[in-house]
């Protein structure tokens, strides 16, 4: 009996491995429903925020659109569920959303105890300091005794205290709850420095202070904030789909495939990597349990990573963010997609 069970298990394992396109419950549910349900931030410019006409825009939003393009071949088949910070983890755990793409830092606790599987960061952020040039400070280490504006109730506040303690500096924190009010306090000169995520600081420097040239962002980044989409534990196939959707966008940039030239590239490509990515050479889609044109659809309808970066947070947008850590791996950044093969 024991031997029989063992054999049965072995057979089952082999057959399981052979059908790698085994449909997980999430993909089935999504296909049956006809749309991907995506948890997003209720409003964070550049990442996920509704525009004047109520359409969701942002790089977090684009991840979900890309997943819809990969699954359905139509980036419109996605429903956005705006979630507050308190709601976000439960919403994913309880199955209210299929993907959580909401400016969420990848941490050990969330990855384990909270039952989330982070796919791969779509934005590498970190906490920094914005100061006026008049202060004459060149490094965050010189901020001893400085008055620092910070928003309450975020890990930002904790990081700030930790950093000052670790460097034996005296801290006068001015904590304010609302983002607009922290901005106003800094603009009015109530504090010497303003600490927040570097992406946030760049947009404040570009939009809120009267003259951006009077302010600088100090070089020190005091925390790591890899912002990544996540899915529930327990459905590896869905995890793969979201992860590889993001990798397809990153690879697209690496190989120079854009939404504008993807049709030409698909016809004339000689690079086997590109051919596999766009489904000219089949196999990749089947492995994911998707249509062979999944990669083509993502890039055609949503664009590659560089395109969504430029459209939502890049220098031409109000946020005016540089690529920095979010450049490709061969250009000094951290965006590195494993090979599509």
């Amino acid at each position, binding site marked *: 009996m024991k031997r029989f069970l063992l054999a049965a298990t072995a057979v089952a394992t082999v057959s399981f491995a052979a059908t790698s396109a085994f449909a997980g419950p999430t993909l089935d*549910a999504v296909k049956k429903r006809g749309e991907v349900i995506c948890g997003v931030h*209720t*409003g*964070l*410019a*550049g990442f996920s*925020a*509704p525009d*004047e*006409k*109520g359409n969701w825009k942002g790089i977090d939003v684009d991840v979900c659109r890309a997943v819809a393009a990969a699954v359905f071949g139509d980036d419109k088949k996605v*429903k956005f*569920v*705006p*979630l*507050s910070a*308190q*709601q976000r983890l*439960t*919403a994913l*755990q*309880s*199955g*209210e959303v299929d993907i959580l793409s909401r400016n969420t830092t990848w941490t050990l606790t969330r990855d384990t105890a909270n039952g989330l599987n982070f796919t791969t960061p779509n934005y590498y952020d970190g906490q920094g300091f914005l100061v006026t040039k008049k202060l004459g400070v060149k490094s965050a280490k010189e901020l001893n005794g400085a008055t620092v504006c910070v928003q309450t109730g975020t890990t930002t506040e904790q990081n700030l205290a930790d950093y000052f303690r670790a460097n034996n500096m005296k801290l006068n924190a001015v904590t304010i709850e609302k*983002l*607009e009010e922290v*901005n*106003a306090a800094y*603009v009015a000169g109530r504090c010497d420095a303003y600490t927040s995520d570097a992406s946030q600081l760049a*947009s*404040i420097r*570009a*939009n*809120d202070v*009267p003259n951006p040239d009077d302010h600088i962002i100090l070089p020190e980044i005091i925390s790591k904030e890899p912002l990544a989409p996540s899915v529930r534990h327990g459905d590896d196939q869905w995890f793969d789909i979201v992860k590889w959707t993001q990798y397809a966008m990153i690879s697209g940039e690496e190989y120079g495939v854009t939404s504008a030239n993807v049709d030409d590239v698909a016809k004339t490509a000689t690079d086997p990597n590109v051919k596999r990515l766009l489904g000219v050479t089949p196999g990749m889609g089947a492995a994911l349990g998707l249509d062979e044109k999944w990669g083509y659809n993502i890039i055609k309808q949503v664009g590659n990573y560089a395109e969504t970066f430029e459209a939502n947070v890049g220098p031409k947008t*109000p*946020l005016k963010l540089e690529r920095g850590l979010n450049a490709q791996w061969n250009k000094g950044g951290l965006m590195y997609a494993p090979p599509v093969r």
Partner: protein
Amino acid sequence: MSTEYKPHPEDALSHVEEPATVYPVNPPTKSLDLLGWARSNLFGSIPNTILTLVALFLLVETLPPLINWAFISSVWSSATPDACRADGVGACWAVVQNKYRFILFGLYPYEEQWRPVVSTLLYIFAVAVSCNPRFWSRRLLVVWAVVVFGSGILMWGGILGLPYVENEKWGGLPLTLMLSVLGIALAFPLGILAALGRRSDLPVIRSVSVVYIELVRGVPLISVLFMASVMIPLFLPEGVTINKLLRAFIGIVLFTGAYIAEAVRGGLQALPRGQYEAADALGLGYWQKTRLIILPQAIRLVIPPLVNQFISMFKDTSLVFIVGLFDLLNTVKTALTDPLWRPYYVEAYVFTALIYFLFCYFMARYSQYLERHLNTGVRR
């Protein structure tokens, strides 16, 4: 005309030896004269004079700059915030001009926003009709049924060639109005039932009412909503969800119902026992007694606390942001995430405050009217 007190002619003749006469005191001067009014009210005593001067000083200091900020050097219309960035510019009302559609209607599809407009007007119409005592009859129920049903069709669509709009996309003013109007409509009967239940002789009904009222009153609304939005999904099987809007709505109704129950109970207890006994003596049954004798008198007594409750509920609907719904306040907040317009948040919030004030002020005035109207004959 200011009149000064003059001793009565007879008093002048009275002898000094007589016991001190108590002079009849003239009624306080009721003068329409501006100067007289100012002398008695503003400069009546030294502390009064000081206070008046301080108040005048503050007014002179703040009012002209405020008017200048809000009306004179303000930017009323501009497609980009550049015009607001110039030196010496006051309020940037252009932020409202650029964002009002999103503030008022939230995520509702842009091309379809006439539907929430019509739906809001329907609700305002129904409320206006219901406020007029001339129309108080059973026909009002028909009006309400038509309005609720009609606005439901308008907002959801999916038939009559209207594209379907799921209620996750509803937002702004229509959402706030619907949550409050329908919330009041459901919470009011619930509150009356709970108040009656709490005074019932049947132990089961009484304890259920007491537990409901005390339990709900013992926690803040935000935690009721939080429970509804965060805890409930955890108990349901994966993939099964209750609509967010419905969850929030139920939370609000339960919460407001408990407070209304206590207000109504105050009215019930203020009624003299004789009213109950007289109704019994007439041979009325419990429901007849309650409907015809008790409630009409009890509710009239508690109009001020009831309206107070309605006003606070209207404003409390803004807490549904915790469930991720875009009510009027949350749409402003979201509209202000646009970094271009973010620095002009004060103007956007002032705009929203005006909308809230308009509705709350209407409720307050209406309650005063209602008290006058219903109190004919029993005014004290």
